[in-house]
Every structure is written in C-alpha cells, then in structure tokens.
C-alpha cells in the first residue's frame, strides 16, 4: 500500500504519522532484544515482498505479507514495517515520504489486529484450526489493509464507491495468495521452529 506524495490531505497525513509514532514507540518498548534479528528478517521480507506484483487493470497490486508479519511480531510489526516502507520510498520511490505514516498504519494496523485475533488459534495443535486461522490471518490482513487504504483516500475526497470497490476488489487475488502463503508458513514453522509462534515447548493441546 504505497500512497504517493501529494495525494492525501494534511489531516489524514498527520493522523497517520501520529498513530505510526505511537505504534512504533509501543513496538520498540515491547520488543525483546533477543527478537531483533527476527524483526529485521521479517522487515526485509516485507521489503522484498512488495516487489512481487500482480498487474490488474490500469494499476497493479503486490504482495503485502502483513498477516504473517503481524502473527510473528505483534507490536514489533510497527517499527519493522516503518523501516521497510522508508527504504522502499527512498530506493524505489514506492510511496511518498510524507505519506509514510499513513502507509505504515495501513499495513501495520491490520497486522496487529491479526496478531490479537489469530495468534492463539494458530498455536492450536489441531491442524485444521491452526492452518485455517493462518489462512484467515493472511486473508484478513490484506482485506483490512485495502479497506483502510480506501478510507484514507475517501477522507481525502475521492468518490467513495469507486475507489473503495477498486482497491478492495483489486486486492482479492492477493488476499487468497497471502492466505495460502500464511498457511504454508505456519505449517512450516510449527514443524521446524514452534517457539517462534509463541509455543513454549509443545503445541497447546486442543480442547
């Protein structure tokens, strides 16, 4: 979600910047030093994932991967995504520097929501519940991101129906792809490194 320079109105930009600052403060405060490498790796994953483009209509959409990032990082998703977006806007001119705040909120906000909604369900031993919620996590994160982007544009004054429909519909393929990717990721991590999902030693017994 890279809204460019000069598209959004000042109140939207300032709100976005304020929320991003607050989110980053909480994220840095909560971030355990032992998890710094993990945050960095996921930050670079996000950085690269945005280059995977799916052309749709006159525009194009790209992978976001905020579902899995939120799931693994929680509040630390805010600083991770802010860093990646900053580098993208400097190196690739993806998104404006002034729009960084809004863009970060649009990506990291849903990541955080998904963390609270699914981090417990994903840890369950039951494969169906675990992978199902991982899929839902990836799907919902992109859905929320597209809805938030639509709202950011609407508050600036673009026509409501047209924009929101376009952004949300255009991201539908991405939602499916990311749902599947999240499910694979969770399945893989559960096998190889369950601690990363917050499972202490053994998966939580399903009730």
């Amino acid at each position, binding site marked *: 979600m*890279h*809204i*460019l320079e*000069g*598209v959004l109105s000042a109140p939207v930009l300032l709100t976005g910047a304020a929320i991003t600052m607050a989110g980053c403060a909480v994220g840095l405060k909560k971030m355990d*030093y032992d998890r*710094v*490498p*993990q*945050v*960095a*790796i*996921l*930050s*670079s*994953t996000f*950085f*690269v*994932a945005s*280059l*995977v*483009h*799916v*052309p749709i*209509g*006159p*525009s*194009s959409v*790209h*992978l976001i991967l905020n579902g899995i990032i939120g799931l693994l990082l929680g509040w630390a998703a805010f600083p991770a995504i802010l*860093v*990646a977006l900053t*580098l*993208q806007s400097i*190196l*690739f*001119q*993806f998104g404006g520097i002034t729009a960084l705040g809004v863009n970060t909120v649009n990506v990291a906000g849903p990541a955080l929501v998904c963390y609270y909604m699914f981090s417990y369900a994903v840890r369950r031993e039951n494969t169906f519940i675990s992978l199902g919620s991982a899929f839902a996590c990836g799907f919902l994160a992109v859905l929320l991101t597209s809805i938030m*982007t639509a709202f950011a*544009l609407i508050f600036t004054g673009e026509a409501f129906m047209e*924009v929101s429909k*376009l*952004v949300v519909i*255009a991201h539908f393929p991405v939602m499916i792809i990311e749902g599947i990717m999240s499910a694979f*990721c969770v399945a*893989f*991590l559960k096998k*190889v*490194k369950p*601690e*990363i999902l917050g499972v202490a030693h053994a998966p939580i017994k399903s009730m």
Partner: protein
Amino acid sequence: MHRLNLCKEYPRLIKIVAFFLFILLCIAMPASYALAHKVILSAYVEGDSVFVESGFSDGSLCKRAVIEVFDPSGKKLLEGKTNEQGEFFFRPPQKTDLKLVLDAGMGHRDEYTVLADELQDVVIGNQAPGTEAMPAPPAETRKPQGVLKAIDGINAKELESILDRVIQKRLRPLTRLVAKSQRKTGVSATEIFSGIRYILGLMGIVMYFRYRKGGKP
C-alpha cells in the same frame, strides 16, 4: 541425523536460513511479473498538439487512465483517457502553462506541466481531444510541392515551417525514447539488496548498543 543435530544446536540459524530462502523465493517467483508501481507522465508538443505518454516506472504502459488538463489557475480545461499504448493527445485550448494530471486509481498519480513557451508555435484549435491515432502531420501531402517550389522563391517563414516539420518527424523516435527512459526509474537488484543490507545494518546497530550496555548475549 546430522541435520537434526543442527536444528537442535542452532535453532536461530535454521530460522534465519528459512526466512532467507523465503525471501529468495519471493525474488525468483515474480521474474515474469512487471515491477510496476510509480506512474510517470511525460508530454511534448508536436505540431499543433500536445502528446502525452504515461507508463509505470518499469516501462510498462498505463492504459485507459484518466488524464485531466488544468490551466495555471486550477481550472479544468479538458479531460480524456489514454489509449492502449498509454498515449493521449489534445489540441491545447490556450497558450498558457498547462498542468496535466494522470490518475490511474488507487493513489497512483503523476503531474506534468507543459510550459507556455513550448506552446508558442501552436495554432489554437478547438478540436476535441482524442486517442484514436496520431493525426497525420499535414506536412506529408504538402511537402513535395513545398520542396519543388523552393527553387523558384521561398521565403524564410515557409522554409522555417518545413524544416520544423521535418525535424519534428525525424526526432519523434528520439523524443519517445527520452520520454520512456524518463519513466524508467524502476527497481534494480542493487537497490533490493542494498535495502536488505540497510535493514540488517540497523539490526547490527541495535545489537551493538545492546551489547555495549553489557546485556547478556
């Protein structure tokens, strides 16, 4: 067996390797996809028309996008859509600076200003803007006569206009090339890897301060 031991002894290593593989997958998978993102608009005056070319930063075209033309005071003069080649042309309705705005939706937009200077030689017409085809330069049919007549008496003005047309025609491929290369500010592997290195470098800085404070490794 050896692999199992590795997993137990270096869990973090495995984790990092796994994610790097994931990143590599992300890079390798989309090789065929366009790395499109930023839209870029460029315009040049040719004959009596302003030609607008639009595209994404990887050089792909920006089809059926809305282009609006404003005068310096912000009044909308006309509006149109780009064709399948991402092109659009219009007859400028007045000789002032013209601000062109391209909107490809979802926050993809760009602006370009055609200066009044460039429009000096334009004959103001009020034909509707269009994208059907390039208007055939009127020079094509008249040129042979002009050249023949040049022998018995040609004034400076005629000569200038003939030269103008011919030069414009010859320069067209070049103008396009320049316009296209202006758009090409795309992503290269160097930038991708430097971005990743920046992030890892930041991680290094954080780790440095942590260890300097005397935290437990």
